[in-house]
């Protein structure tokens, strides 16, 4: 018997696949799809009434949007690059350099993935915030009025927090890929005269590329939409697209502009998510 049909006097009546899609759509529609549609509609509804592209024109023409877009993109690209480099190096060590507690560290990576993003920002604030431990130690030792660590409220602080939080998202697929790598390949490469750097470059890296691409795509999408980290660092001069949505909607009550920025953010995210899924399928994840 077909899984999507019933036997009736020797004939199988197929239930159209669309029928099976209805229940989730019915659940999602009021909770997500309708509000999303409202956001899109609002982005085409200027305050003076009617439907037009004028909100898009105004937002695209504003300096604050262009600044937020460029800040969002460079932060996302920067944190993705940082996560790829750091994640690859750390995953290499965990996977191929035996050390006591290595398995525990690998398991901790899984736990880390479940942490909320603001938690790592809070931890960094405790360490490097204006009244954090590092500055406190400095003032205690030198007697100065304030410490030298103020980078956390700059874009570099946001970048550091994002790299710290998102790196495990690169490491997880990498560790999975490394566990499937035949270690005999590394040994044979070594016996053929290859030094460790060449083995990493020519044997491990090509095998890890799909996992790197999958992890990198995921981090890129997530960092584009990251709100909590930017908010908790208290970096007033760092405005990303999600922060701009927050500012326009909550602080300025400019809903059409907020919705335009949100639609742009969604378009970028969906585009990158499609890329991520494509890469993931190639990896087999």
């Amino acid at each position, binding site marked *: 018997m077909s899984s999507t049909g019933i036997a009736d006097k020797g004939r199988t009546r197929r239930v159209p696949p669309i029928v099976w899609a209805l229940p989730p759509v019915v659940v999602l529609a009021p909770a997500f799809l309708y509000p999303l549609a409202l956001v899109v509609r609002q982005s085409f509804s200027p305050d003076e009434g009617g439907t037009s592209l004028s909100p898009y024109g105004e937002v695209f023409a504003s300096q604050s949007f262009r600044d937020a877009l460029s800040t969002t993109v460079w932060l996302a690209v920067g944190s993705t690059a940082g996560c790829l480099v750091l994640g690859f190096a750390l995953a290499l060590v965990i996977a191929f350099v035996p050390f006591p507690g290595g398995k525990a560290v690998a398991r901790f990576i899984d736990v880390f993935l479940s942490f909320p993003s603001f938690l790592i920002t809070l931890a960094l604030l405790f360490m490097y915030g204006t009244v954090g431990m590092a500055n406190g130690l400095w003032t205690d030792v030198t007697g100065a009025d304030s410490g030298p660590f103020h980078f956390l409220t700059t874009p570099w602080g946001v970048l550091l927090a994002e790299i710290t939080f998102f790196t495990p998202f690169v490491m997880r697929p990498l560790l999975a890929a490394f566990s499937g790598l035949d270690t005999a*390949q590394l040994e*044979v490469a*070594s*016996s053929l005269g290859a030094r460790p750097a060449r083995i990493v470059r020519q044997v491990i890296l090509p095998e890890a590329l799909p996992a790197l691409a999958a992890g990198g795509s995921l981090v890129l999408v997530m960092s584009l939409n990251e709100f909590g980290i930017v908010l908790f660092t208290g970096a007033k001069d760092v405005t990303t697209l999600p922060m701009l949505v927050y500012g326009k909607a909550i602080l300025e009550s400019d809903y059409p502009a907020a919705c335009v920025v949100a639609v742009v953010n969604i378009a970028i995210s969906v585009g990158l998510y499609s890329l991520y899924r494509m890469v993931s399928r190639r990896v087999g994840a």
Partner: protein
Amino acid sequence: MTGPGMTSPGATPGGIRFDQVSVAYDGNTVLDRLDLTVEPGEVMALLGPSGSGKTTALRAVAGFVRPSSGRVFLGGRDVTDLPPHRRGIGMVVQQYALFPHMRVADNVAFGLKARKAPKSGIPQLVADALELVGMASYAGRYPRELSGGQQQRVAIARALATRPGVLLLDEPLSALDAQLRSGMLTELARLHRELPDVSILYVTHDQVEALTLADRIAVMDRARLQDCGTPQELYRSPRTEFTASFVGNANLLPVTVADGHVDFAGHQLTVSTGDVAAGVSATLCVRPHLVGLGAGPNALTGTVAEVQWRGSTHRLYVDVEGHRVKADLRELRETPAIGAPATLHFATEDAVLLPVGAADE
């Protein structure tokens, strides 16, 4: 690629020497004071069951395990403290370990590039290596596009492309089916003839591979070298019970030495007792294929316990006074029934007397 002295930059001249090499993990000795020399151009098979220490010995030569004591020499040079990439060896492993993202030619060129061979000469060296294993027409393919046997040939070509003086083969045929294995054995024998200067250390648990290919066989068991000799020596005159059993699956009969003969379960058997004194317990080793059915010298009477047809031969298991004796016989026209009485015999010169417990020394 043939001819003496043809080694690439960084390659090691032939010859391997283990000098009292021991390897231990967490206090557990997996290789115990191995003393063994592989001469330049010689094929030495390390033969033994799983856990006997044979692969550990090979990995000690490759540099993947560090001896807890003893030294390893390659071509007369102490390499114990050298990392694997500086040992100048070639290595082939059971699962081929080809680099899947590289074409066949790139796989074979890998070692040449790693050892900084002149760029202009690499294509020719790759072509020579692939020609040697009959894979020249597959240079542009990826490993996934090759069969198991073809992948193994490429792995051998990759190991030989750098023209090493020492080639390490770790169970290279165990992933192949019986027919391919037989073909590859012939290929390896041919390769050895064409590369007479290369010392080969061949790890296997398959006695047929060892007997077919090796100039000498080192029999390993429980982390120790039990016996070493030419295949003929080990087969015809094993020095230990383990060798007699593992190589050729010999009958091992507990006997008591008397004047000019031995006593076995009430049977008086005429064999050469050599220097063994009368009254001493010993083990009599007789190969199954040297045992005949019917009356004859050194007859053993018992009952048939099992009959196995093996194509060209029958194997009979006959219980003689509580001891099971194996006999490999040319295909019988009439097989004896299980439980029927049977008489086996063997010639005096086909039996070897072993001291009891020789394997544990």
